[in-house]
């Protein structure tokens, strides 16, 4: 039965403001929206660095070192953001927006903490049903830091837009992390098969290759197999 509710278009339901709505699972595009929102509230810290001028050139350079990665949001930061007030409201709105519900509607119809913990968050978890940590395993070859997991988004997009998937960027944006994990696992299998096929092909080529010394034998008028 696992995943059937999604296959038949019947996601988990949530009561909100007198209505009852199904929740859409989170896709990669939603993480992009969340990241954009985080950067929006962050503002431009380079303006702050300009304030360091009275402290001298070295202080300004140190300031630039501090803020130069300000627009690189770690996946761990995204997950942290989703646990904040703003993040969970945004996450809920992303799951409900296909009903034409605005962000302000979600804010206006908030329930108390009990509603969040008993209804909203379980329904969201059920809708997403993705093992985010698991999705990271393949994406990062190195050892995983559980405190601050990260996804190399550019690498992910590169992998999915190339052979054997050839998925367009728009389609990639609609994938969930679970689907990404499935695809990338499939890719590993496919790549494994390709490698073994090429090994077989190489062995066949080797078998068909002219045996060493055969040319000399021919030139000397000897038989091929002689």
């Amino acid at each position, binding site marked *: 039965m696992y995943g059937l509710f999604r296959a038949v278009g019947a996601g988990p339901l949530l009561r*909100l*403001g007198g209505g009852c709505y199904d929740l859409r699972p989170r896709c990669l595009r939603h993480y992009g929206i969340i990241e954009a929102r*985080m950067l929006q*509230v*962050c*503002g431009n*810290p380079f303006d*702050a*660095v300009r*304030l*360091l001028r*009275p*402290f001298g050139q070295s*202080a300004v350079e*140190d*300031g630039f070192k*501090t*803020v130069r990665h*300000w627009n690189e949001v770690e996946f761990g*930061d995204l997950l*942290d*953001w989703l*646990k*904040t*007030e*703003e*993040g969970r*409201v945004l996450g809920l709105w992303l799951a409900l927006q296909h009903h034409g519900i605005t962000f302000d509607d979600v*804010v*206006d*119809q*908030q*329930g*108390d*903490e009990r*509603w969040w913990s008993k209804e909203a968050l379980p329904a969201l978890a059920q809708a997403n049903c993705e093992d985010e940590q698991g999705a990271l395993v393949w994406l990062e070859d190195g050892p995983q830091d559980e405190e601050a997991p990260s996804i190399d988004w550019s690498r992910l997009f590169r992998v999915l837009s190339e052979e054997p998937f050839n998925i367009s960027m728009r389609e990639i944006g609609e994938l969930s992390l679970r689907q990404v994990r499935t695809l990338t696992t499939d890719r590993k299998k496919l790549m494994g098969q390709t490698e073994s096929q090429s090994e077989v092909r190489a062995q066949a080529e080797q078998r068909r290759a002219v045996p060493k010394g055969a040319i000399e034998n021919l030139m000397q008028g000897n038989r091929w197999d002689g």
Partner: protein
Amino acid sequence: MAEFIEVTAGAKTYRIGRVGFNVRLDAAEQIRQKRRDEFSRAVNTFKDAGNEEQRMLVALALDKMVRGVSVTTVEVNDWLRSPEGEAFTLLCGMRKNLPAATPDDVMALLTDISAEDYVLVDDFLAKSLFGTK
């Protein structure tokens, strides 16, 4: 639950509206603004006679400001329970009726309000914090 509560303090009647969940989002922005202010204050305090240690404090304030994008639910709750947070909630409530209300109006109300009315207002705002669900 009523949309407004009226209290009289210092011969003046104040009408305070339901604040709703939005005040929690505004509170998060207020906390972020405080981090920005901390950095600006550190710069203004030390810019004339900044030694190595003071420069480090400025650098720390910058680091805190840049990293402090996420404001946790716990931080929001703590701030809303602080005197500053209570005054902010009250201001949001007053602006539901009078959009031009200022922090001075809040201070005037808090100065003259009786203990009984204060409890009533506090209870009203606490109940209205989570909206209409």
